[in-house]
């Protein structure tokens, strides 16, 4: 499985990449929504199964990225998970309405991220078990 981690924080990209690799993902990274869109345009059929998306990023924020991805029918198979400090209910609703599948609020304990993958059926280590 492939994942694309989108976050302007290199620390968060590192931590999420580490967690995803532990359960068997091949991981790509982008530091903002625009770079992530550019990357999706270049990978052809090798689209990621999962994108983790920060909300507040320079250039293009996570919500705009979700909206842009949802405008492209050929990308509808990508699961979109917001991973963000935006913790208000209305922000969660906006993200889900835009097309995000899951929403994980920071800070979160390490196991919470894996639980979200389980919920989405996107934990390769569970599939192999």
């Amino acid at each position, binding site marked *: 499985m492939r994942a694309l981690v989108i976050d*302007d*924080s*290199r*620390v*968060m990209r*590192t*931590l999420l990449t580490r967690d995803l690799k532990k359960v068997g993902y091949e991981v790509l990274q982008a530091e903002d929504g625009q770079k992530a869109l550019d990357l999706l345009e270049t990978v052809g059929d090798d689209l990621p199964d999962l994108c983790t998306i920060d909300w*507040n*990023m*320079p250039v293009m924020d996570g919500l705009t990225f979700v909206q842009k991805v949802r405008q492209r029918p050929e990308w509808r198979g990508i699961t979109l998970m917001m991973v*963000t*400090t*935006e*913790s*208000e209910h*209305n922000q969660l609703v906006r993200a889900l309405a835009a097309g995000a599948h899951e929403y994980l609020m*920071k*800070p*979160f*304990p*390490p196991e919470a991220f894996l639980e979200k993958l389980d919920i989405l059926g996107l934990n390769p280590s569970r599939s192999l078990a």
Partner: protein
Amino acid sequence: MSAQTDTQAEAALACVELQSDDLVAITTDVWSCFLDEEVYPMPEDAAGLDAESVLASVGIVGAWGGHVLLELPVAGAEAAAKRMLDLEEVTALEIVDALGELTNMVGGNVKSLLPPTCHLGLPMVVQGTVAPAAGTDTIEICRAFLGWADTTVRVSVWAKTNRDRNGLAT
């Protein structure tokens, strides 16, 4: 605190009910999740934050304006970055990234306690001496000191007063 500053503080506090305990709870949560370490409240006079520190700030705009500031001694900031990234050594850039993200998380959770609708900015991190933002258009409305791994973490929330350094409306 002068009468004018008192008035500014009252105005800044009027729309928020943020307590030191809130900052302690939020910071404890962040440290527990991302550094797998406990932090504990400590008295201000035991904080010892007079050395050069790393200061990380994230702005909040919207219905409420101000910023959240996280301060650690340089050695503490380095320890936090090492712990967060699980590395033996960290670069200056990794310290900046780690402190920025910790501040982002604290700021985001502070924002959830503020009036809707507010927006979080992007974190900024600098190294320098601890200097409250005196003489600017912000005033400290809440702070907490926490102990962690032989170091101190100071978390504070600063509200915009819409006053310049001369006390004039901006």
